[in-house]
């Protein structure tokens, strides 16, 4: 399946080409956007293929699984890659209007596409060690993007981000090593068969513990999310947006993949831990957001809170709950990226992200108000936007599983989300600008406004689309969940039909 390879080749080639073109900024920008568009195109074809024909797999170098490395896309992977393509294009375009030319010259585009390479690699690989490698590609690219500006706050944020994430990947690597030692294989479809056969429960649980830890850090679960609020508000808005959209979601993806295919999230202790962590993640994240006064810091804490919903879906481990988790991820990536992008425009127009120092936007730029309200209300779960259905499914699943406390938590967190979104609205949009002289704000010049607004409008349109025409998205999530809970199609695609 050449498509699977293409999904990696496109970002890789784009990263290399943008590096080579670093002395001709126009070309470099064009390549970056074209590469992102190509990734989206490839991902859409891939998605269509998987929707039509079920999981597909491709052996690398022609070595059959479980010996060589296999790329594999079931519906979850394909959906994640499609959404990655969407975000790639959005941030590639947005970056044209935002990124400092100096940062472009020293590698913004290359790092961005390297990051995308790591992300798509992580979504598509069918090999656990290879997953570790893509994690590292993603991580090192994100380190670079984070520290690229070289401002003191960026360096500070990067230090915390780098240090905590390195611990998590080393735990991941140790887990992979131990799991290999116990099963003799690294292929995830193969592990699906091998792990249940292990007769030493200590091995099962300790390896599960290491992977759980690693992915929890990556997903920013309570109580190991510190790196995220410490760093996400510091880099360029473009970088923040792509981080917010994709990085933690790779962690959540890995949790879902590993704890459905290799282990199952319904395992004793693992399930309880995930449930408690999900509840506390929702709660502490949203409370953290409520305590902030800076747009991007509010949004960063919200990422954590929303991760809680996704993990809750996994932890409940019922078919409906997994559907909810997947629907939530798809919705959230679009919405969260968009909120960061809108935050960037707010900053451009008012000169700050500190809510105390800005205001007057509802009068000065009502169009931006509408563009903010769509993702903000969606995030808060207001119908008929995408977030409503996402929350609805997760809460319904909680109620049906009789986890009433968690359902109540999810609802209360929804209310607190309304509160903190309305806080941004009240302060940035409704409140008059504290310096009347700046009330009108500065306008965007034409090229800039096109680059900044087109992605925002596009993502907002997707949010509305998912909300109004939720049925196909729900259907895809359902099929994806079915494939996760009964991975026989996945396993067959990778290993071939077993006698």
């Amino acid at each position, binding site marked *: 399946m050449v498509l699977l390879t293409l999904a990696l080749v496109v970002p890789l080639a784009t990263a290399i080409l943008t590096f080579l073109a670093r002395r001709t900024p126009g070309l470099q920008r064009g390549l970056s956007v074209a590469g992102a568009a190509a990734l989206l195109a490839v991902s859409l074809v891939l998605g269509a293929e998987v929707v039509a024909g079920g999981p597909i797999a491709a052996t690398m170098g022609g070595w059959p699984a479980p010996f060589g490395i296999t790329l594999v896309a079931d519906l979850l992977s394909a959906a994640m890659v499609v959404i990655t393509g969407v975000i790639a294009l959005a941030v590639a375009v947005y970056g044209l209007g935002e990124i400092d030319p100096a940062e472009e010259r020293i590698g913004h585009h290359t790092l961005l596409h390297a990051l995308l390479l790591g992300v798509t690699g992580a979504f598509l690989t069918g090999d656990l060690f290879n997953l570790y490698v893509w994690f590292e590609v993603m991580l*090192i690219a994100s380190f670079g993007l984070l520290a690229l500006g070289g401002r003191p706050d960026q360096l500070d944020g990067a*230090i915390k981000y780098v240090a905590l994430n*390195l611990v998590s990947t080393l735990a991941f690597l140790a887990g992979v*090593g131990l799991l*290999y030692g116990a099963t003799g294989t690294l292929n995830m479809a193969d592990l699906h068969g091998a792990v249940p056969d292990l007769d030493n429960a200590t091995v099962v649980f300790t390896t599960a513990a290491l992977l759980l830890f690693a992915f929890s850090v990556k997903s920013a679960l309570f109580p190991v999310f510190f790196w995220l609020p410490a760093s996400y508000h510091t880099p360029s808005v473009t970088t923040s947006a792509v981080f917010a959209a994709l990085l933690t979601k790779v962690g959540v993806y890995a949790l879902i993949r590993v704890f459905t295919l290799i282990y199952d999230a319904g395992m004793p202790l693992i399930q309880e831990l995930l449930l408690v962590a999900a509840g506390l993640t929702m709660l502490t994240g949203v409370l953290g957001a409520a305590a902030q006064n800076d747009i991007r810091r509010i949004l960063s804490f919200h990422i954590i809170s929303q991760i809680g919903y996704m993990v809750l879906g996994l932890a409940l481990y019922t078919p409906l709950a997994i559907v909810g988790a997947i629907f939530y991820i798809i919705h959230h990536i679009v919405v969260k990226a968009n909120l960061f992008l809108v935050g960037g425009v707010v900053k451009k127009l008012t000169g700050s992200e500190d809510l105390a120092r800005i205001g007057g936007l509802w009068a000065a730029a009502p169009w931006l108000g509408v563009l903010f309200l769509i993702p903000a209300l969606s995030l808060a779960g207001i119908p008929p936007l995408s977030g409503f259905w996402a929350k609805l499914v997760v809460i319904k699943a909680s109620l049906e599983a009789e986890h009433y406390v968690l359902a109540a938590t999810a609802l209360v967190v929804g209310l607190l989300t309304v509160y903190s979104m309305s806080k941004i609205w009240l302060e940035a949009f409704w409140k008059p600008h504290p310096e009347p002289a700046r009330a009108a704000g500065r306008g965007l010049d034409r090229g800039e406004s096109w680059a900044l607004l087109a992605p925002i409008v596009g993502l907002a349109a997707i949010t509305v689309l998912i909300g109004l025409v939720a049925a196909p998205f729900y259907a895809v999530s359902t099929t994806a969940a079915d494939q996760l809970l009964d991975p026989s199609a996945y396993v067959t695609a990778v290993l071939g039909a077993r006698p």
Partner: protein
Amino acid sequence: MELALAVLVGVLTTCAVYLMLSGNMVRFIFALALLSNAVNLVIFAAGRLTYAAPPLIADGAKAPADTVANALPQALILTAIVIGFGLLAFTLVLVHRAHQTLGTVEADDMRVAEPASDDDEAR
């Protein structure tokens, strides 16, 4: 020997974690090196230790004649070592830059991204 190697892994991990907790970013670099070594040893041991020849195939042979050491973990470790080196080198540069800009290598004294005055604001 495998057991002894497990003990060594334990020692390395303990030392690494302890160093990390110091908050000194230079020590963190050391910790990173220690932990990388520990994890590499984990993979190595997980491939089982054999007093055997390196996994090479003699000229003309189709496969190793005798038992050879497990090649797969070796390949994994090689990958991990190189990746680990890349990360460590970057981290080192980052710490160096942070020191230049922030004037400290004590992570707890780096309070630019999350200023201490937050506590007052939040009230």
